[in-house]
C-alpha cells in the first residue's frame, strides 16, 4: 500500500490544475494560471471534418498533454511520460512509480469514470487526473473537477486509461522526477506568451487561432439555412459544450489566461501587461455573453431566440479583441 501526502486542489482546467498540483507536491509552487500560461495552453481551433457526437469539434485549448510537457520543459523540470500498448504493463508501471513515492498524472476517458456525475459522462478522452497511491485494488485519485479526493478500482482505472475513440489516451501517464530547487520563471513566462501569441495569430491555417474564430463565425451564419433550425441549434450547442469547460465556450480559459497575464505583470515588473490582462478579462466576458445568448437557442427545438448572425457578430468581436491582444503580446521582451 502506498498513500502519498498529496494536496488536492480544485481547478478550472484539468491539465493545468494537475500540472500545478504535481509541482506543488515537489515543493515548487506555481498557480494554475501560471502553469496554463507557461504551458501555452490557450488556443482555438475549429475542426468541421472531425465530428464528435455527430457535430463538428471546436477546441479552446492546445492538444492534451502539451501544457504539462511544455511547462516542464520550459521550467527545466525533468519529467517522464509513457504510453503503453499493453494495459497490464501500463498498470504495472503505474504501481512501480507510485512505489517510488511519485504521484502520477494520467490522461483518461470520462465515459466510464465512476465518480463523475452521470450527466457529464460523455466520450471525452482528454481528461487528466492524478493518482497518488493504491491499496490492493483501490487507487487514490485527485481529480481537479471534484471537490474531494476520490477512489477508483483497478478494473475501472484500467478501463478509463484505455478508453477508445478520438484522442484515445492509450494509457498515457506522466510525472515529474526531478524539480530543481531554484527556478527563474521569468524567461519561461515570456516564452510561453510568445508561443501562445504565435499559436493564435501566427499560424497560416484558416481554422486555427484568431482565424479559426472568424472561420467559425462565417460557418455559423450559414448553419440555419444549410442544416435547418434543429441541427443548427445542436451544432451551436456543441461549440458551447466542447472541452472540459462545458457551457462556457472557452470563456473560462480566457479568464484563466487573464489571471496569468495579471500575475506575469507583477513577476516581470511590466505594467503594460496588467492593462492587457484586463482586456483579456473583458474578452472572457464577451465569450461568456456568446455562450449565454447562444444557449438560449438550444433550449427548445424550432425557433431560435437569437439570430445566428447576431451570434456570429459576437464571435467576430471576440476574434478582433483577441487579435489586438496577441498582436501586442507578441512584442514582449524580457
Amino acid at each position, binding site marked *: 500500500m502506498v498513500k502519498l501526502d498529496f494536496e488536492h486542489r480544485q481547478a*478550472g482546467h484539468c491539465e493545468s490544475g494537475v500540472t500545478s498540483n504535481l509541482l506543488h507536491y515537489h515543493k515548487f509552487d506555481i498557480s494554475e*494560471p501560471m502553469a496554463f500560461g507557461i504551458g501555452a495552453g490557450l488556443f482555438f481551433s475549429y475542426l468541421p471534418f472531425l465530428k464528435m*457526437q*455527430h457535430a463538428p469539434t471546436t477546441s479552446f485549448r492546445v492538444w492534451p498533454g502539451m501544457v504539462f510537457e511544455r511547462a516542464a520543459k520550459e521550467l527545466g523540470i525533468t519529467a517522464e511520460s509513457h504510453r503503453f500498448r499493453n494495459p497490464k504493463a501500463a498498470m504495472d508501471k503505474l504501481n512501480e512509480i507510485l512505489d517510488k513515492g511519485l504521484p502520477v498524472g494520467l490522461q483518461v476517458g470520462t*465515459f466510464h469514470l465512476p465518480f463523475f456525475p452521470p*450527466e*457529464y459522462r*460523455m*466520450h471525452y478522452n482528454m481528461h487528466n487526473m492524478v493518482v497518488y497511491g493504491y491499496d490492493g485494488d483501490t487507487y487514490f485519485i485527485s481529480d481537479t473537477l471534484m471537490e474531494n479526493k476520490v477512489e477508483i478500482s483497478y478494473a475501472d482505472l484500467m478501463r478509463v486509461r484505455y478508453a*477508445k*475513440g*478520438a484522442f*484515445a489516451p492509450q494509457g498515457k501517464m506522466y510525472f515529474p522526477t526531478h524539480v530543481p530547487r531554484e527556478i527563474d520563471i521569468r524567461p519561461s513566462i515570456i516564452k510561453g506568451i510568445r508561443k501562445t501569441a504565435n499559436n493564435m495569430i501566427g499560424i497560416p491555417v484558416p481554422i486555427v487561432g484568431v482565424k479559426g474564430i472568424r472561420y467559425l463565425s462565417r460557418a455559423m451564419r450559414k448553419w440555419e439555412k444549410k442544416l435547418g433550425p434543429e441541427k443548427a*441549434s*445542436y451544432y451551436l*450547442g*456543441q461549440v*458551447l*459544450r466542447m472541452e472540459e*469547460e*462545458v*457551457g*462556457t465556450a472557452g*470563456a*473560462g480559459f480566457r*479568464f484563466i489566461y*487573464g*489571471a496569468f497575464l*495579471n500575475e506575469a505583470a507583477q513577476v516581470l515588473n511590466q505594467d503594460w501587461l496588467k492593462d492587457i*490582462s*484586463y482586456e483579456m*478579462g*473583458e474578452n*472572457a*466576458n464577451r465569450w*461568456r*455573453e456568446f*455562450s*449565454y445568448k*447562444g*444557449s*438560449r437557442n*438550444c*433550449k427548445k427545438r424550432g425557433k431560435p431566440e437569437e439570430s445566428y448572425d447576431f451570434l456570429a457578430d459576437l464571435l467576430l468581436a471576440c476574434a478582433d479583441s483577441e487579435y489586438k491582444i496577441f498582436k501586442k503580446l507578441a512584442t514582449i521582451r524580457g
Partner: protein
Amino acid sequence: MTPLFDREHGFTRKVDYQNNSNQVIIRQSWDAAAQRVEAIRQQVLAGELSPVAYYMEKHLMEVPMLAAYMELPKWRVKRHMKPSVFRRLRPELLARYAGIFEVGVDQLVSTDELNQQ
C-alpha cells in the same frame, strides 16, 4: 448573466461553471442522444438493423470507436449492423459485444428489452 471579470475584483473571483446555460446545453445533448436511440430502436424492431446498432447508439458510440473497442476493422463492425449477418455471428464475437455494452449475451440477441421500452 454574471460577467466573469470586472476591474474592481480583478481575477480573484472563482469561475462558476455550474450556471444555467450549462444545464441547457447538457440537456440538449442528452435529448438529441435519446432521439437517436429511439429512432434506431424502431429500426431494430422493424428488422432493418441489428441490436448492435441500438446498443452502440445507447452508449453514445460511433462505428470507429466501437471498432476500436472490438479490435476489428470498421467494415466488419458496420456489417454486424445487418440483422442477417448478426444472426450468424460467432458466440465469441457476441460475447465481446456484450462485454462492451455491459449486457448479457441473451439480452443482446433478443429484442425483448427493446420491445418493453
